[in-house]
């Protein structure tokens, strides 16, 4: 028999159909695994769809072929023609499906490529964003570091500023001199407590002050302004400030103008020192110098005059023996004798003033001296209705001095007080003593309620021969001599007229003389004296 056996092709068909199924499903499995591994990758999804279609195609083909072979092997050849159209149709359908799915691969890939390109762009943008975020983070860290350093620096500088501010604030508030700040309107914008006290303002309420209010002299103020405008500062400028109560104080001021960037003065700051006490002391020193020179001159003159006066008196008394008491010559000689004696008394006073006379020193209780003086003078005072009030401190320390001379001083002061109140027909004399423990001085004050001493006269009252009394009533040597005696005792005389009451601050008419004497270094000596 010629021909070819179909058995090999039948066997290949059966085995091949099974192998088709196996490989198709294995391919589908891996396609599925790819979609699970990268679900966002469209390409894997697409390959998975192709694999599904191929698997379905394999089933349709393999199932049909295997069924056909089994039907033919089993001898049921007549069944196959019935199934064949369905198997073939299904197979054709699957073939078309696979073709359709495969054909769409191109579009799918194109779409995927576009998406992938956009995804890549997005990824790149994300990377750039991440990079930018990282750079921002680094920058932030750097900034935080800088901030941290900055904060530390700020804290440090703030602490320094605070310390500096505290230091200068303390200097401002604790200064015993006036420290002030003013604006262009000459308003004092800030002033320390010492400044306010210097101007007589006490209490918590701070007054609104202007330089015009405190400068006494308008001329000085103009000079001050001109100097500030011209030089930008004022140094050691002496002027007078007007206090709240109207009294004047001498001040030494320095000030500096503060300018803006254009050079315009925007404010000023300055310091003023109260020189009133210094000036008073200077005046007293000058007076003291003057008195000392006058005293020396007076001593010289007195010494020179004393001898001729003694000769004149001697010869006058000798000549008086030669004339009858009723004679005119005798009477003339008597006048010469009297006037010569008066002149000698003046000379003696001058010598006392210039401390040229001898002096006995002992420990004294000043209260006893005052009591002695009042005992002697009280009678005359009462005749003019002048009352003496004594307020003497107990346990007053002793002073070293000449009791007689000190009595003379107090007699002088009481007599002056008497004369000051004589015209009034009445008055009071207050005699007070106390111990100034701070300066270790004994103070004795004689105060009257008389007419007081005019301010322009006060500087001259200790000058020799200066008197406001009528001619013949005073020689003008009383206070000069007293001044000399107290100076000789190492003390000082102060005068206050009118008197300012320490408690109320009010001015009381009258004059107060204060004798200030140093405390004795050996207080035991006073007890030895009865």
């Amino acid at each position: 028999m010629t021909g070819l056996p179909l058995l090999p092709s039948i066997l290949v068909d059966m085995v091949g159909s099974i192998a088709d199924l196996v490989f198709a499903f294995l391919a589908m499995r891996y396609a599925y695994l790819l979609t699970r591994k990268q679900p966002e990758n469209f390409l894997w999804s697409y390959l998975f769809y192709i694999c599904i279609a191929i698997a379905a195609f394999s089933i349709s083909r393999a199932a049909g072929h295997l069924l056909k072979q089994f039907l033919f092997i089993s001898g049921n050849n007549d069944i196959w023609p019935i199934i064949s159209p369905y198997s073939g149709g299904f197979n054709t359908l699957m073939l078309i499906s696979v073709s359709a799915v495969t054909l769409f691969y191109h579009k799918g890939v194109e779409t995927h490529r576009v998406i992938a390109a956009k995804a890549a762009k997005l990824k790149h943008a994300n990377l750039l964003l991440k990079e930018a975020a990282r750079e921002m983070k680094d920058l932030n860290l750097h900034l935080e570091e800088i901030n941290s350093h900055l904060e530390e620096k700020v804290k440090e500088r703030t602490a320094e500023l605070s310390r500096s501010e505290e230091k200068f604030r303390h200097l401002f508030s604790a200064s015993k001199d006036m420290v002030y700040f003013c604006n262009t309107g000459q308003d004092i914008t800030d002033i320390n407590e010492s400044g306010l006290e210097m101007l007589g303002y006490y209490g918590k309420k701070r007054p609104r002050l202007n330089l015009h209010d405190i400068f006494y002299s308008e001329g000085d103020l103009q000079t001050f302004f001109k100097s500030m405008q011209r030089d930008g500062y004022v140094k050691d400028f002496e002027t007078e400030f007007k206090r709240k109560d109207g009294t004047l104080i001498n001040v030494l001021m320095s000030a500096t103008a503060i300018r803006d960037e254009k050079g315009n003065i925007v404010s000023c700051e300055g310091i003023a020192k109260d020189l009133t006490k210094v000036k008073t002391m200077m005046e007293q020193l000058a007076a003291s110098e003057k008195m000392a020179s006058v005293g020396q001159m007076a001593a010289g003159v007195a010494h020179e005059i004393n001898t001729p006066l003694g000769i004149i008196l001697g010869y006058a008394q000798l000549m008086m023996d030669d004339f009858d008491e009723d004679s005119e010559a005798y009477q003339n000689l008597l006048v010469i004798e009297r006037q010569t004696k008066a002149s000698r008394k003046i000379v003696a006073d001058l010598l006392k003033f210039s401390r040229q006379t001898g002096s006995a020193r002992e420990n004294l209780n000043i209260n006893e001296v005052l009591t002695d003086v009042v005992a002697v003078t009280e009678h005359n005072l009462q005749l003019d209705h002048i009352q003496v009030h004594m307020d003497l401190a107990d346990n007053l320390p002793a002073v070293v001095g000449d009791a007689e001379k000190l009595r003379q001083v107090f007699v002088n002061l009481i007599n002056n007080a008497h004369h000051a109140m004589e015209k009034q027909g009445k008055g009071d004399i207050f005699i007070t003593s106390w111990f100034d423990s701070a300066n270790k001085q004994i103070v004795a004050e004689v105060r009257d309620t008389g007419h007081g001493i005019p301010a322009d006269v006060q500087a001259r009252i200790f000058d020799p021969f200066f008197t406001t009394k009528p001619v013949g009533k005073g020689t003008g040597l009383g206070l000069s001599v007293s001044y000399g005696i107290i100076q000789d005792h190492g003390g000082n005389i102060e005068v206050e007229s009118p008197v300012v009451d320490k408690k109320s601050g009010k001015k009381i008419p009258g004059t107060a003389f204060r004798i200030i004497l140093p405390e004795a270094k050996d207080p035991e000596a006073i007890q030895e004296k009865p």
Partner: protein
Amino acid sequence: MNKSLQQSWQIAKAVILVLMSMLIVPDAAWALQSHGPPEGIYVHQMAHAFFVGSLVFLFLDLRRSATKSRGWIYLKKFCLLMIVWNVVAFTGHAVATLLAPRHIAGAESFFHARLLGPMDPTKLIFYITRFDHLLLVPSLFFLFVGLRTLYLNVEREVSQGGGQ
């Protein structure tokens, strides 16, 4: 409902009514086209041609766009083998139509069936094309190997932290 929608709905109702009346009263003028015996094989052959076209398109696209990694090379081989298989199958189906049942003897036993001689080119081509699985199985094998390779590459990339 506005006026235009109401008009559309009226037209739709008229069309549905006409179609339903056609079903109730069939007529020869409305008969569907009949599909005789040769149509099945023609459709099947056209499906093969369509599949070839799709595979050629896929192959060209893979060659143009896909990377040179081993997985994609396997997939291209799958395409080529599958194209060849389609050609073989198409040829087999075409040649089969030329053979008459008398050219195959298999009455005594299916395993002993034979292509009867004398042999001519038609019969030889028919005989050879019956071994089409020798192309189809390798083709599907390359599909499987290609996808497996792609999967293993992806898995390696993921495990190495490369991501997609």
